């Protein structure tokens, strides 16, 4: 087990270094003089020279990367070009918002998808299975920015049940915050909900065909016990793996959802910084998100190795 943990840790560090390199290189993809592109045509020669120096563009690329990377290791991701503050403090203000909404969305999708997947598999071919399968397929196909707009139209504009947009911290005003969070959380949950339901259904279908399930049934166990104690335990493993991947979709979703509902989180910061070409922020966001995703996968992999010795020894 120790060897397995060590191997996975080293792997994660290598991946992180590569991510940092990818994040860093985006600035250098910009066609032409990056400083000029960032500041626009009206900038004076002096401003351009200053920015070039600030970003280190006057140095060879590997020197720039080395400097950026060693600073990043010390928790210094540079200064934002537009916010005129350190990247870390800009991100620190917005990260909790995205984590809060993302966690709620993930919880919501787990709570609904696993029972839905089980019901769908156990009652295969019944009307409930058809409804769940169709809903999951729609969930995979619906553009979530459009779902958000539909929600705003019906629940805010027509029925007046929910506020149109905005974000309030649950610590400031819990009731308002919850009302504002309902639609964004549902929109964020749609993709994880659909993928997890489909995965639960298909791995459950796979498992209930196995011999040990027939054995359990022939022992005279109640169907409920067979499903929850015998089948689910094995069927859930691929679902847990998939759970680790959901962080990617939640962050992707937050880019769209925060834009529609005007929520000051990482997603919105990302979009505005990309279009403003505020690259220190963009690089910082990518790095922070990647660390979160790598950590999530690491935790899933380690727990997986703990549960299933075959993976450990591979």
């Amino acid at each position, binding site marked *: 087990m120790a060897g397995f943990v060590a191997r996975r840790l080293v792997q994660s560090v290598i991946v992180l270094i590569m*991510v940092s390199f990818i994040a860093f290189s985006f600035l250098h993809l910009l066609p032409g003089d990056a400083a000029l592109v960032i500041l626009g045509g009206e900038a004076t020669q002096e401003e351009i020279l200053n920015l070039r120096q600030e970003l280190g563009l006057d140095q060879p690329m590997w020197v720039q990367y080395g400097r950026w990377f060693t600073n990043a290791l010390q928790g210094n991701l540079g200064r934002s070009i537009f916010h005129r503050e350190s990247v870390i403090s800009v991100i620190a203000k917005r990260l909790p918002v995205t984590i809060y909404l993302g966690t709620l969305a993930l919880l919501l999708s787990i709570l609904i998808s696993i029972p839905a997947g089980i019901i769908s598999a156990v009652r295969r071919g019944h009307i409930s299975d058809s409804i769940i399968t169709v809903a999951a397929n729609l969930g995979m196909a619906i553009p979530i920015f459009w779902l958000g707009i*539909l929600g705003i*139209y019906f629940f805010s504009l027509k029925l007046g049940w929910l506020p149109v947009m905005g974000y309030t911290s649950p610590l400031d005003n819990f009731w308002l915050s919850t009302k504002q969070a309902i639609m964004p959380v549902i929109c964020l949950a749609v993709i994880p909900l659909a993928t997890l339901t489909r995965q639960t259904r298909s791995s459950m279908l796979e498992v209930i065909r196995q011999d040990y399930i027939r054995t359990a049934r022939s022992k005279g166990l109640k169907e409920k016990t067979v499903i929850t104690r015998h089948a689910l335990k094995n069927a859930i493993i691929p679902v847990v793996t998939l759970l680790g991947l959901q962080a990617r979709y939640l962050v992707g979703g937050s880019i769209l959802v925060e834009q529609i509902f005007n929520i000051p989180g990482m997603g919105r910061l990302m979009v505005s910084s990309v279009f403003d070409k505020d690259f220190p922020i963009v690089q910082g966001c990518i790095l922070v*998100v990647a660390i979160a995703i790598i950590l999530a996968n690491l935790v899933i992999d380690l727990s997986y190795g703990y549960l299933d010795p075959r993976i450990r020894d591979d």
Partner: protein
Amino acid sequence: MAEVTTTNEILSGNAPRTNELRRFMRVFLGRKVVLVGVIIILVLIITALFAPQIAPHDPIKQNLRIALQSPSSEHLLGTDPLGRDILSRIIYGSRVSLAVGFIAVGVGGVLGMTLGLLAGYFGRIVDLLIMRFIDAMMAIPPLMLALVLGVSLGGGLNNVMIALGISLLPTYARLMRGQVLAVKQADYVKAGKVVGCSDFRIMFRHVFPNCLPPLIVLVTLNLGVAILSEASLSFLGLGISPPGAAWGAMVYDGYTYLMTNPLLSFAPGICIMLVVLAFNIVGDGLRDVLDPRLRGTI
């Protein structure tokens, strides 16, 4: 497999293959949902190809006197704030969706499969380097990667296609590598080495074709993903430049007029959903026919 083939059919050499194809089509199109999916995709392709003939109006021509009209017999879905016919813009928008879908998947597929083939075939350090790089790409959410790449490359529709393609690449590389590792053990690959085939020849003539079935499924499923991602990016303002029509951008433009003209946002959104749904259903159907073992893995 107990099929009666006459001597002539056997001699002509193509009999079993035609039967296979026929059986494939029967099983594949036998399910009504899949058939509906195929029909939606065909309609999309025809619409995109013959947009100038089908569209009732010019999608770009502005006429402020008829701005923001409700649906009428002249403008079936009404008009936008600049007096342009919504239906015609949706019809032209199908071209963007379809082109981006195919080109992005093409870019991602070719690059990803090549990387996966190299990693799986050569193994060792090549495998290590390529796969850690792929892991790094997987640690960046695809939409985020496509957004940053698209803007960094300079924006515009072409760059969005490339950016989306690159964001799709990791899945292909992983799947291809897994397939290659399995196929590499086959006797015909070893035989190829023994008779002195070059690595290049073994890779592309012998290994590659035998890795394809699950990748074909992934391509179909990814067409939906690519179209959805393009819509998301154009919703955020990246992609085709105005006055060109793209569905995602139309949803965004209509957002401002949600209270008075909800159709402006609703109609293009429904199109995105239908098309993505169709590609997903057809992809699932293909997977079930080509390789039922894959159910739930891609």
